[in-house]
């Protein structure tokens, strides 16, 4: 399972990386065949979009932004949400209550709205998009980690570790954290898929990347308008790519949780 996931994600990453050499046309040149919305043909295997840009080239190029934004946001969430959740829950008391209150306040806002607000504040760009998505997702990590730690820290093996004289940070890092990872991986997978969609949403309202950078999300959102007039190819190929990317990361997530949890091993 993890191998299939890694193959898919690696293939997409490589495809995006070598796009400049394998793409038949420039992904941003408009009216490339003299027409717009040309259906798939030998000349344009995936057709052209409403601006007359070659969809094959755009599909090959278009993963770059998604990959960067998603990976970056997952990384930021992980590095901030997980340690705060672990620490807050393990220490407990006033610190935990205060942090939970703040995080729940963030959680109360609809995700896309808060991402739009932050992206509007920070301005367009990959890092800013990633940061605004991260803010939306940190509460999920925090809450999952916190609730898991609350139950794990009461388990006998944690008590046994303390009874054997383990330092408090050893208990937290070696006994509690590894047992939380499977849950974090699941959140990270959902986070990844959602980051892709949120990135597309931000691009659509002009807070993501500019239209001259090829992006699956951009193609998907814009191409949707032409689906009714029969131009199915504009959204189909970027759509498949996004699904593949999300699938790849889901498979990696599942595989990882299996590897990290010896109980699921055969």
């Amino acid at each position, binding site marked *: 399972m993890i191998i299939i996931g890694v193959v898919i994600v690696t293939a997409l990453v490589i495809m995006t990386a070598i796009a400049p050499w394998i793409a038949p046309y420039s992904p941003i040149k408009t009216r490339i065949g003299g027409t717009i919305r040309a259906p798939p043909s030998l000349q344009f295997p995936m057709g052209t979009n409403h601006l007359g840009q070659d969809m094959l080239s755009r599909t090959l190029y278009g993963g770059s932004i998604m990959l960067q934004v998603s990976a970056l946001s997952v990384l930021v969430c992980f590095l901030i949400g997980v340690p705060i959740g672990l620490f807050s829950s393990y220490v407990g008391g006033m610190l935990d209550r205060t942090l939970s209150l703040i995080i729940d306040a963030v959680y109360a806002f609809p995700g896309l709205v808060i991402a739009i607000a932050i992206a509007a504040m920070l301005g367009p760009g990959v890092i800013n998009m990633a940061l605004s998505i991260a803010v939306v997702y940190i509460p999920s990590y925090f809450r999952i980690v916190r609730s898991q730690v609350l139950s794990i820290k009461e*388990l*006998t*093996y944690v*008590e*046994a*570790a*303390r*009874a*054997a*004289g*383990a*330092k408090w940070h*050893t208990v937290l890092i*070696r*006994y509690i954290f*590894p*047992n939380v990872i499977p849950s974090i991986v699941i959140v990270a997978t959902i986070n990844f898929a959602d980051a892709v969609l949120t990135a597309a949403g931000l691009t659509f309202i002009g807070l993501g990347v500019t239209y001259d950078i090829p992006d699956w999300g951009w193609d998907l959102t814009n191409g949707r308008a032409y689906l009714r007039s029969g131009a199915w190819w504009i959204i189909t190929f970027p759509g498949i790519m996004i699904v593949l990317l999300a699938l790849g990361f889901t498979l990696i997530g599942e595989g990882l949780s299996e590897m*990290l*949890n*010896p*109980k699921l091993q055969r």
Partner: protein
Amino acid sequence: MPLLEIDSLAVDYRTSRGSVHAVDDVSFCLEKGDTLGLAGESGSGKSTLGLSIIRLIPYPGVISNGHIKIDGKDIVRLPEEEMRHIRGKRVAYIFQDPMVSLNPVKKIGAHFCELIRTHEPKTSKEQADNRAKNVLKDLGILPERINDYPHQFSGGMRQRIMIGLAIALNPDLVIADEPTTALDVVVQAKILDLLEDLRKAYGMALILISHDLSIILERCDKIIVMYAGHMVEYASSAELHKDPRHPYTQGLLQSIPNIELSDQKLSAIPGSPPNMVNPPKGCRFWPRCSYAKEECRIKEPALIDVGRNHLVRCVLYGKEGASIE
């Protein structure tokens, strides 16, 4: 100097509905190599007493009175960092349920390795592994299995591993809290034999906590019977078996089946343990006691010596006792 000296210890759980005196006025001494049994029902405070010796009473429990001295050093107010060096190294604790006492994501070897290197940081990983293998041999588990995960072992094997972890650093005292309650009877006997053999081989003292008085009578030199946080009787096991004084102890002994008596009727102690937020006034056992008199409801009896180092907390023995009031 005794290895462990507990003096008028009281442990409270401070809840919003009031303080629960889980352990109240408990005093005893334990010499090197001694075996002591703590017997009592659920909620009698025996586990709390055990955990207070390593100062790991769960929140909101606090030691509200008394002293716990290990080699003459009072640990009640010892800084956490010094306490950490006692746990595992001087005093080891074995928990009740072996199925959840080992970290599921760590191999058995890693459990030993971490324990050894926590207390002896200079030990290399290879040395720790070798020591772990030697301990496993003592436990009757193949040394190669240090590379297995906890879920690959049965309950009895896991409890043997817990015992191995407890003795790995050769502590002075092992506290075993219901070590065999989660296991079946055959495995129970094997585990207790193993614990006894290793205890003798390593010269450790043992506190065995159990609700099963028969196990304690068989395995321990001395016995404390606990009821509702109080020590109600303290005696050597031979003495207690022959001459139980407290009505509660008598009740416990009468509820143990004896295969030599074919027409023996087992008697149960009527009622259930008291509400600990609001325990009965006077003797805590009087509502269930068939000898209860008027004075039992008024005055809490003192622990009195009835001879041969046999202590009992009951008014029935007040008149002949040496240290009455």
